[in-house]
């Protein structure tokens, strides 16, 4: 330890040593992380400066303290020590009480200290103040919960408002005395309501996907494509979806999650929506790409996407034009599964002959 008489003693009841005599003690005393030891009853037997500073004490003050004062919750303490009987504990976050009575968060690693015969004689560990980090985490969690709550309210209320408008407009449209010149505007209004519904659904779905913890599993692509096709058919009752694939059940797998169906559903939905024909053909093909990834293409024969729109439709930014958000959700999901996505013309140079969505994924 330091020979400077103004330096605080490192260890309880121990004589000071010069730095050259005990570089180990100097190292511990100068560490930025807090270091401590206690006896089995929780009385401090060793603290360094950093540890004392975390709590707002001088080191010698801590030797008068028992750790009971610094634990905020007895339940928390019992849980930790119960676990400590089985193993060393690394990097847990726990609350602690400072000298001024305020509460903070501590990142703590602690182990049981034993004598040469293996008999427990106390505890020792390393600690660091984690209050700022934990406060930021809590704030973020609360902000996220608030956002989710507000979105839920909006989705519910907007859906109710749209419901009222939808049925009203439909009833008006069915009035046999309605002049012909009013039918078209009403049909346009209904179409706008359907767009609004789709946007609300996709925004909510995207929020759900973002909030959900990612848990990836092996998924049979054929099953997901089939489910997505059925869902699409149930939405477009006046159209017929003809789906072709070059693979069958059990042949192609991806590492994905429950939202893989959403990925294909949104692609099929787009194809159905923008194809003027009653019979809509979509092909889903799989292949192995040059760099040994799975390549999945979804091809339609619809009105296509102009070149300057191809990037924009995949990325909907705040304030940007565009609607639906379906392809934004697709792109988000592709990236969630460590994939890539791009759009091509089905017939090169002729965007209005249909689109190929090209995706590659790691092999599942």
């Amino acid at each position, binding site marked *: 330890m330091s020979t400077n008489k103004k330096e605080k003693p490192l260890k309880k009841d121990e004589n000071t040593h010069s730095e050259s005599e005990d570089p180990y003690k100097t190292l511990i005393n100068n560490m930025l992380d807090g270091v401590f030891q206690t006896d089995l009853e929780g009385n401090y037997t060793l603290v360094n400066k950093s540890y004392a500073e975390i709590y707002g004490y001088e080191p010698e003050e801590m030797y008068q303290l028992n750790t009971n004062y610094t634990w905020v919750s007895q339940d928390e303490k019992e849980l930790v020590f119960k676990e400590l009987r089985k193993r060393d504990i690394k990097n847990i976050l726990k609350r602690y009480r400072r000298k001024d009575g305020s509460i903070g968060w501590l990142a703590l690693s602690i182990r049981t200290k034993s004598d040469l015969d293996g008999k427990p004689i106390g505890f020792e560990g390393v600690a660091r103040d984690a209050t700022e980090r934990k406060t930021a985490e809590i704030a973020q969690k609360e902000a996220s919960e608030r956002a989710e709550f507000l979105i839920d309210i909006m989705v*519910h209320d907007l859906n109710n408002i*749209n*419901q009222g408008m*939808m*049925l*009203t407009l*439909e009833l008006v449209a069915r009035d046999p005395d309605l002049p012909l010149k009013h039918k078209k505007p009403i049909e346009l209004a209904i179409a706008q309501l359907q767009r609004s519904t789709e946007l*609300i659904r996709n925004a*909510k779905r995207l929020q759900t996907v973002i909030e959900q913890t990612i848990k990836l599993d092996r998924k049979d692509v054929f099953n997901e494509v089939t489910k997505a096709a059925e869902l699409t058919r149930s939405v477009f*009752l006046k159209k017929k979806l003809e789906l072709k694939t070059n693979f069958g059940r059990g042949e192609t797998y991806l590492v994905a999650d429950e939202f893989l169906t959403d990925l294909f559903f949104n692609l099929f939905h787009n194809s159905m929506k923008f194809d003027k024909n009653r019979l809509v053909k979509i092909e889903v093909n799989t292949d192995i790409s040059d760099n040994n990834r799975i390549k999945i293409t979804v091809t339609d024969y619809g009105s296509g996407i102009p070149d300057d729109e191809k990037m924009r439709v995949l990325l909907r930014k705040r304030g940007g034009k565009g609607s639906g958000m379906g392809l934004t959700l697709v792109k988000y999901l592709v990236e969630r599964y460590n994939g890539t996505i791009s759009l091509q013309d089905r017939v090169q140079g002729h965007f209005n002959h249909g689109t190929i969505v090209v995706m590659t994924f790691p092999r599942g």
Partner: protein
Amino acid sequence: MPNILVVDDEKDIQNLAKVILEAESYEVSTASNGEEALALIEKNHFDLILLDVVMQHTDGLEVCRKIRRTKRTKNTLVIMFSGLGKGVDTMLDENEKADDYLEKPFDRKSLLEKVNALLKKNR
């Protein structure tokens, strides 16, 4: 003619559904919340109940649970509607769930298709 109860805390949706269903010659009653619905169900026989999920105090899930747990009404047809679609009643046991679902906003055609299909199946 079949007797239908429409339960929704939005008066406009109640009235619009009533107009649509009465045009198909159904007899329609309405309720604005879960308590009102349960009071009507206790006194009357309904062949089918259209049930909104999100309502104050007693929500649609609780109403459905009570319908299924009452001997007299346990086989009453129930169509649940909400903005959440089929996933809306995952917290109900299998024998407490609705018979079908309508995602809001539904159009006239979807409403009639679901109602007609269920009532036809039940005859």
